[in-house]
Structure formats: structure tokens, C-alpha cells
């Protein structure tokens, strides 16, 4: 049966009980009634008018001026009723937005999807986790016809949806660059021109671009203002910073990017990351890069994918499972 049909007798019973003995129990029944009526979208002014009409039936000799006072209460409550209905409709809209956001995040996943290539002699692991719905970090692998493996890791300055949309554009720019033997430096120069011309002037991108040639085990790389990664030298058991100089993409049209080179020996690792990794904030402040190294070292005997997964889990725990920034960590390990 519809709540509206039983509402009147129910409310009448409540009133009668309470008028009779003013018990706690009767008050509690009133609370239950209000929950039920909210659930059935009964507005506050409806309750007031119900109250008034029941009072007239139950107490016919009630002074007229008391009854008149209910008209004022009714008028005042109309405003509350409107606010309540607005609140309901906003909640509904919020639900809608949230589900659209989820769809957008899925579309982004599809658009930006990249496959970790299978290469003889190279063990590759990658993880990228957004702080919110949309990821402003991005990584991309390309395997060209000469079997060279290229990896790009990028972070859009700015967060959320605009950053994510911007990243999709970069991906398509990267895909449309001619693959044939462009060095990392010239790839960044090309992308810089595209970002400078096409992206909102207050949005910038940091990117590290590396290219590994399995023929001679040479890594060439260049960086556009990206958080430096690490290089692990297996023979010396030593981590060094994989630093490269270069300006953020999108600031200055004529920026040049230098190529750097490194010979990769068996067991060596190339570790790339986004600033969400180093800006991991714990109760005692930021984690130091040395601590990050300790975490990587702890899992160094595992496969590249297991290392990145485990390091992420540990750092996530340190931050009480609340990422402040998008987190991306990539490891390329030359097989022994």
C-alpha cells in the first residue's frame, strides 16, 4: 500500500499517543515516521498541513488563532521543501556525473592503452595508478622494425580531466611521428612544437624518452624536464641518477633536447618514474630518493613487473592508501 494512503492514520496515532502521555517512545515513533516520509518524498509543508488538519479534527475547540499560526509555519516550510527538492535533484545529477566520469576514465584507458612489448633479453615492468579517476601520467612503448624498444613516460602539469584530455593528444602526436630512426632528442623537439602550439598556454608536460637498441645494448635518452629516473649497475650494485637536461614541453618553441647514451650490461636496470613516486608524502614528510632505492633494492631479485607492483604497494601503504598524485613506475631490466 502506498505510504501516502496510510500516512494520515499513522500520524494521527502518533499525535494521540504523545498528547496522552508524552513518552520517549512516542517521540521515537515520530523519528521513524520522518525517515519514512523522507523516503517517500513527502515535503515538510505537507506534514505541517497534515498536522493542522488532524489537530482541527482532534481538538475542535482549539482557539482559532492557534490554527492561524499554522499558516505562517506552512509558508515558512515551503522554502525548506524547495531546498530539499533541489538537494535531491543535485544528488541525482551528481550520480549522473560520477557515472560519466567513470565512462570517461574507461575511454581514456582505451585511448591511451599501450602494450608492454615482449623482447628477448629485456624484462619490462610498468605500473601507473591515478590519484583520482583520470590519470595525468602516461607511458607508452613502441617497438620499431629494427627491434628497438622506445619508452616514453610523461606527466601533464595540471590534474584531472583537462590533463587527461591533453595526454590523449600527445599520444596521437607520438603515434604519428615517423618511426624511422629519430633520436629521442628530436622526438621531444617535435612534441614540444606540437604542445607549444596546440595546448592551453598554462599547461605543460614533462617527458622522458628512452630508446633501447638490443643489437648493441645501448640506451639513448632525452628528457624534457622530467623527474630523473635511476640506473642500476648490477656489477657494482649501485644506483645512480639517470639525469638529462631539458626544458618542459610547451614553454619555448625553439627548445633543443640533447641525446644521452648509456651501455646497458646484463642485470642492469633502467628505472623510470613520475613525480607522484618521489612526492609520496608520509607522516614524517616526503620520502627521500634513497628510501625509494631501498624499496627497489629489497625486491631486486624479482621480475620487473613484480618489483614495480611491490614497490607501489609499499609506498601506497606508507601514504595510508591515499595517493596525492598519479603514480607511475617503469623498470627495464636486461636479462642476465
Amino acid at each position, binding site marked *: 500500500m502506498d505510504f501516502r494512503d496510510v500516512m494520515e492514520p499513522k500520524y494521527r496515532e502518533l499525535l494521540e499517543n504523545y498528547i496522552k502521555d508524552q513518552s520517549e517512545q512516542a517521540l521515537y515513533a515520530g523519528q521513524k515516521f520522518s525517515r519514512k516520509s523522507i523516503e517517500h518524498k513527502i515535503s515538510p509543508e505537507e506534514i505541517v498541513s497534515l498536522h493542522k488538519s488532524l489537530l482541527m479534527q482532534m481538538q475542535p475547540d482549539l482557539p482559532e488563532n492557534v490554527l492561524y499560526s499554522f499558516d505562517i509555519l506552512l509558508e515558512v516550510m515551503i522554502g525548506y521543501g524547495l531546498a530539499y527538492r533541489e538537494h535531491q535533484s543535485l544528488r541525482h545529477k551528481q550520480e549522473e556525473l560520477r557515472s560519466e566520469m567513470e565512462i570517461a576514465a574507461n575511454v581514456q584507458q582505451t585511448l591511451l592503452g599501450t602494450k608492454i612489448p615482449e623482447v628477448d633479453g629485456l624484462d619490462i615492468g610498468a605500473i601507473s595508478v591515478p590519484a583520482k579517476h583520470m590519470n595525468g601520467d602516461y607511458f607508452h612503448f613502441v617497438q620499431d622494425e629494427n627491434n628497438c624498444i622506445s619508452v616514453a613516460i610523461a606527466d601533464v602539469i595540471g*590534474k584531472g580531466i583537462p590533463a587527461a584530455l591533453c595526454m590523449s593528444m600527445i599520444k596521437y602526436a607520438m603515434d604519428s611521428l615517423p618511426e624511422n630512426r629519430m633520436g629521442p632528442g628530436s622526438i621531444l623537439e617535435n612534441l614540444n612544437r606540437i604542445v607549444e602550439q596546440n595546448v592551453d598556454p598554462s599547461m605543460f608536460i614533462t617527458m622522458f624518452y628512452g630508446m633501447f637498441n638490443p643489437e648493441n645494448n645501448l640506451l639513448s635518452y632525452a628528457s624534457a624536464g622530467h623527474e*630523473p629516473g635511476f640506473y642500476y649497475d648490477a656489477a657494482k650494485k649501485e644506483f645512480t641518477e639517470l639525469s638529462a637536461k631539458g626544458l*618542459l614541453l610547451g614553454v619555448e618553441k625553439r627548445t633543443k633536447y640533447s641525446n644521452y647514451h648509456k651501455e646497458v650490461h646484463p642485470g642492469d636496470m633502467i628505472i623510470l618514474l613520475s613525480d607522484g613516486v618521489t612526492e609520496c608524502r608520509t607522516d614524517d614528510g616526503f620520502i627521500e630518493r634513497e628510501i625509494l632505492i631501498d624499496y627497489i633494492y629489497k625486491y631486486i631479485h624479482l621480475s620487473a613487473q613484480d618489483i614495480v607492483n611491490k614497490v607501489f604497494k609499499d609506498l601506497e601503504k606508507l601514504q595510508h592508501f591515499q595517493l596525492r598524485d598519479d603514480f607511475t613506475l617503469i623498470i627495464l631490466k636486461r636479462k642476465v
Partner: protein
Amino acid sequence: MNLSINIKETDILLEISVEGEIDAYTAPQLRERLFPLSEKNGVNMEINLSGVSYMDSTGLGVFVGVFKNVKANNGQFKINGLSGRLQRLFEITGLSDIIDVNSQIEGEVK
């Protein structure tokens, strides 16, 4: 997390000191205050960040935007008072090569 922005303007210099944390939540405030100022022709802007305890890349984006605006309007732009952590952020991103940062003479007589 609060951000306070103090602006002191004289005929020749626009001194802005920022205090607090600059992140995705506070950066829009900073942008709103600084952008209109950066569009004045020939502005001489000096920003002091010695009271900034934290800044992420969103804050960096605001300063790059302001810097580009100031340059486009023939102005001067300087950032002072960077902590070691912030200085590193400007160095990694290559911005310290194009923006005048921490150039004031250090070791003043106390």
C-alpha cells in the same frame, strides 16, 4: 591547507610573497591573483617563496604561465627564497635556465 598571498606595489617593483602550500587545491587561487598582474605592460615582478612549505607541479605550471605572460608584456620576472626542494624542482624541469631564480646575493650581514 592555506595559502596567503601578499602583494606590495611600488612604482618600480611588484613584490609578491606567498606563504603556505601550493598544490592542486590552492594553485587556482594563486593563478587568479597573479594572472591579471602579469598582463600589465612592463611589470617588474618579484616573487618570494620563502614561506612556501610545499609546492607540486601544479604550482610550477602557474609560475610558468605567469612568467610567459610577463615576458610577452615586456616585463621582468624573478623568483626568490626557494628552499632546496623547490630549487631542485626548478632545476629538473629546466626552468632555472630560463627563469631568474634565487639570484639574490646570499650571506647578507645579520
